[in-house]
């Protein structure tokens, strides 16, 4: 055949490709790029000075920022401990209920955050199971910082464990067994062998967990009780400012959360690339080891 125009038999016709690419770009533009740009345009529309004034001039906004910077790190620390423990248990031991535990770790992803918040109200609220006892001891959990920490921890619970389990399973226990045979204690083995092997996956989990912890709205909304200046986190503050027709204030705080998202995305992309490389390296070392 002597057609003048060469067509690649493995690819779709040109118009199909153009249409698909245009559709994808269109959706991303309308749903992601334009809103994101708009947040910054609205926030900075009246100039940097006004922006700074909006953020620093309002005591309640300041309180919201401080509260988020308190709640998120605590939730993160709790999930760090839990995530490593769970990943270790699931990837290194075979025990009854292991599959169930693996499934339960995912639960916060599938439960609506509002439901999660309600569960805590039901347990710790005044009318809840532990309410009278907590009240008798003068402990406030719901409508106070501990409730926010609990709700945030619950919602962000899977991020670190989910990141570590596949990584630790891919790496295997061989190096840890070798370390034990060389006389390492459990802690030495973890710090010198396991941790360096999982560190990038761990950082990745921390970044995602932190982004979600700072941005969490639903569960926190239910347990916070909306006490301005006391239990409003940044996302709650954005909503409240918006409801009060304080658009510049709402967008100024929103721009902070959006910036956090952008930084997270950048770090996440860099780490994904690194983790993929580590996984490929683990797979390569294994397959070379197996090749007889």
């Amino acid at each position, binding site marked *: 055949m002597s057609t003048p125009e060469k067509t690649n038999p493995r690819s779709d016709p040109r118009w199909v490709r153009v249409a698909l690419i245009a559709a994808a770009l269109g959706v991303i533009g309308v749903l992601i790029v334009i809103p994101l740009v708009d947040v910054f345009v609205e926030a900075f529309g009246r100039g940097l000075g006004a922006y700074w004034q909006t953020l620093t001039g309002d005591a309640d906004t300041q309180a919201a920022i401080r509260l988020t910077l308190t709640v998120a790190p605590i939730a993160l620390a709790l999930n760090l401990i839990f995530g490593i423990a769970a990943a270790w248990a699931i990837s290194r031991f075979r025990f009854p209920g292991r599959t169930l535990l693996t499934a339960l770790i995912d639960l916060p992803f599938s439960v609506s955050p509002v439901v999660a918040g309600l569960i805590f109200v039901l347990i710790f609220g005044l009318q809840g199971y532990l309410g009278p006892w907590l009240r008798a001891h003068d402990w406030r959990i719901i409508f106070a910082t501990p409730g926010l920490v609990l709700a945030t921890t619950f919602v962000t619970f899977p991020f670190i464990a989910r990141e570590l389990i596949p990584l630790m399973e891919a790496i295997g226990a*061989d190096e840890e*067994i*070798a*370390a*034990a*045979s*060389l006389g390492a204690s459990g802690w030495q083995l973890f710090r010198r062998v396991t941790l360096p092997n999982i560190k990038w996956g761990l950082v990745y989990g921390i970044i995602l967990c932190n982004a979600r912890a700072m941005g969490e709205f639903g569960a926190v909304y239910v347990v916070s009780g909306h006490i301005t200046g006391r239990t409003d986190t940044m996302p709650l503050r954005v909503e409240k400012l918006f409801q009060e027709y304080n658009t510049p204030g709402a967008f100024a705080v929103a721009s902070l959360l959006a910036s956090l998202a952008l930084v997270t995305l950048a770090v996440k992309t860099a780490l994904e690339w690194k983790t993929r490389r580590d996984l490929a390296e683990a797979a390569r070392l294994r397959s070379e*080891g197996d090749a*007889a």
Partner: protein
Amino acid sequence: MSITVKQVSKSFGSFRALEHVSVEVAGGSLVALLGPSGSGKTTLLRIIAGLEVADSGTVLYEDEDVTDAAVKDRNVGFVFQHYALFRHMTVFENVAFGLRVRRWPRKRVKERVGELLRLIQLDALAGSYPSQLSGGQRQRVALARALAPEPKVLLLDEPFGALDAKVRQELRQWLRRLHDEIHVTSVFVTHDQEEAFEVADRVVIMNHGHVEQTGTPREIFERPANPFVMDFLGNVNVFHGHVVRGRMKAGSLEVDYPAHPHDEPRPATAFVRSHELDILRTPNGRSSLEGKIMHLSPAGPVVKARVFAADFGIVLNVDVPRDRYAELGLEVGDTVYVAPRDVRVYLQDYII
């Protein structure tokens, strides 16, 4: 440092990996645990190391009962089949690991690691990472790492299993020389009988969680204890027949078997190694089997002939020395007579 394993049993679910296994390893010796896969050899090694816990029985290092001691307290060097090097550490740090966790002073660590890297001839690669090394180099690093803390016992799990044939050959000779230098009590697991015979002082042959035979390579080769060992060592022809009144008969093959002088016949199996068969042009007075040459493989130190013996309906493998092959001028299709020089007969109470 001698190792004594007494009556050790171990099951994984319903699978009985070891049943009342007892093994003695003399101090300073190099012992091979040899057997097919699933024979329990690796499980036994891991129990000696403390990586696996025996269901019953005891393990002694010299006179010390270590059955319940954790691996980290046993002071053993363990070399893993897949190296298990620490991927994020350099060669130097890998070898230094056992010393660092024991809190050796920095200076002594440096000396000891340097000494070992010279021993494995990898001092030039001290700063490399495991991913930059070849398989043979990695295995040597794994060995140096295991030896660094001056273990009482060195245990190796299929140490050369993942290497190609040539590297394997070199490394096992190197291991033997190394052992002659440092004399640490060593046990290694292998499924390769050639490897076990070439390297070890003593060989323990295992099958289905039992020890079949223990001895020097020569003892085992010359006096296999039972049909399993005979068969496992390979290069053997098997004849089924029976013994009666002190004679073993299998078709036209007849040999003495004085251990069974009774009238009542019993099924028996005769084993003849392929190098213990002679090929003749004419039948001799001794018992010889008629056969037809089906295939000749003259590329090697001996000529391997495959001879079909119609009487038995089996194909015999015969190793013919090269000069004998030239003298007889053998060709495929020739009718020849095969005469055994040495026959081992085992009564068939034993199922392979």
